[in-house]
């Protein structure tokens, strides 16, 4: 909080720099000065269209989704008191992907522009309903994990079933590629669709800091410190569902950001769960912006998927962190 101003300033600067890079780097090859002028001008020229319709939504979505994943990951790890937790644990991303896959398969996605994201949001909402019905209103964190695993497994099985029954290899390939996650060809419509839900989710998750701090002492101690665990859990599930559901709906499943970013930043905030929330949100935005710039620079002609890059970067980073933890003898 008070001691982390330098870290927050550094993260903010990093996000700013990467946001600018995301706006300025692309296959159209517009010179930076020209690009910025076109962005501000917003007239009917090709440059202005590229900047406003293609690059701006892409950069905005990277910030929004990255911040969402980082924030939700930090909240989930704080609630479960487990550094291996991630937002996908409660099954919302898997279920949102299932909704999207069904939309692709049934042709709903092709019939109107928002068919896919809306179907994905419906999947996420279904997951939350099932999760709360399974875990009950008052259960502990263990029942939430078990219910989340059950919902994830069910969504995964149903997604596999849709792929299995897919009429031709092209449809299957389309689904596979969508599931890898990407920000290519997203428009401001996607931004406006995701933003309201994400704002609600950010507000819910940002309000958890005090409760997550108290949970450092365990559930019993937190409750006697005046924290309502029932309310905390409901806010966590609803907040995570809003941000992850909206993120998956517009960009597909992007893994590892919510797992790795809180883990990397934890030592820099003195391990305090409340201080980790904003730091992790900025860190997530930076990581996703960087990954989205990377897919444009590395093999631009092969349309490398964003989720593939975050996993490729995230997994070795995570292995390194585990190795370091082991070296510390924990």
């Amino acid at each position, binding site marked *: 909080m008070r001691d982390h101003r330098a870290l927050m300033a550094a993260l903010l600067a990093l996000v700013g720099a990467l946001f600018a890079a995301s706006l300025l780097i692309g296959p159209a090859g517009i010179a930076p000065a020209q690009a910025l002028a076109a962005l501000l001008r917003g007239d009917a020229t090709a440059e202005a269209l590229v900047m406003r319709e293609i690059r701006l939504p892409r950069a905005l979505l990277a910030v929004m989704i990255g911040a969402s994943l980082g924030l939700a990951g930090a909240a989930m790890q704080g609630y479960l008191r487990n550094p291996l937790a991630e937002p996908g644990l409660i099954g919302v991303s898997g279920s949102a992907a299932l909704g999207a896959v069904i939309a692709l398969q049934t042709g709903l996605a092709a019939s109107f522009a928002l068919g896919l994201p809306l179907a994905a949001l419906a999947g996420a909402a279904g997951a939350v309903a099932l999760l709360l019905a399974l875990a009950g209103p008052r259960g502990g964190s263990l029942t939430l994990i078990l219910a989340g695993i059950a919902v994830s497994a069910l969504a995964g099985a149903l997604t596999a079933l849709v792929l299995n029954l897919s009429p031709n290899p092209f449809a299957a390939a389309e689904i596979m590629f969508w599931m890898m996650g990407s920000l290519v060809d997203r428009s401001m419509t996607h931004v406006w669709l995701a933003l309201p839900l994400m704002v609600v989710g950010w507000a819910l998750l940002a309000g958890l800091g005090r409760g997550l701090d108290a949970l450092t002492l365990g559930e019993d101690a937190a409750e006697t410190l005046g924290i309502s665990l029932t309310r905390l859990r409901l806010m966590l599930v609803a907040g995570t569902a809003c941000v992850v559901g909206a993120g998956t709906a517009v960009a597909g499943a992007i893994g590892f950001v919510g797992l790795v970013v809180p883990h990397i930043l934890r030592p820099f905030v003195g391990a*305090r769960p409340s201080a980790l929330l904003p730091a992790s949100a900025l860190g997530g935005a930076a990581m996703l912006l960087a990954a989205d710039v990377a897919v444009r620079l590395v093999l631009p002609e092969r349309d490398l998927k964003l989720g593939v890059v975050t996993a490729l970067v995230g997994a070795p980073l995570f292995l390194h962190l585990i190795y370091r933890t082991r070296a510390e003898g924990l």
Partner: protein
Amino acid sequence: MLTVENLSVARGPCTVIDGVSLSVGPGEFVGLIGPNGAGKTTLMRAALGLLPHTGESSLAAMPAQTRARTVAWMPQSREIAWPVAVETLIALGRLPHLPRGAHLAPADRNAIDAAIARMGLESFRTRAANALSGGEQARVLIARVLAQDTPLILADEPAAGLDPAHQITLMHAFAAEARAGRSVVASLHDLGLAARHCTRIIALHHGRVAADGPPAQALTPALLAEVFHITAHVAQTPHGPVCQPLEVIR
């Protein structure tokens, strides 16, 4: 401070706490004793309102925020989830006194410093709390409870895992709280510590109160035989009552 009226807790078909009534007033340091499974933890958790129960408890009836400023609870499981600094962890005891989003005020800092001094943790202030030894962690968690600065403290086996010097320090700290007009209820397995330092002993047996009174009156050979199945050397000394368990009665 704490009034419990006809409190019962059932777990499945078993009645773990069976119609317990008691009240603890200001200035009392109660040692809650009883063999494993007698219901000490269950009684305290139910009295706090953390468990479904029947009967009345003054704490369970309070709104959560009021309760957090009335009673500090030290659970038996000593959880420290993250490598936070010792003083950050102890500062969590101030949460009930802080409005949302507020920083620690001078009064909070004083309470934290006093608790750190009480438990002799000055040299640990900036160490990662979860990297300390078990006994040191226990002292940090006791300091958190003291920092909460409540009129009532409930502690579940606070002395377990402490070395003799720190056990005595802990008992002195709780006794000082009681002398200052607060109340402390601590479950204890060390009958010697309970006899020596507590102002009152409550012995639980099969979920009922088997004895309740000052140590010299409560800790009788008959009670120790019935409840604990042990013989003990119980004596009045110039240092106060002494209770040394000797043999198991078969």
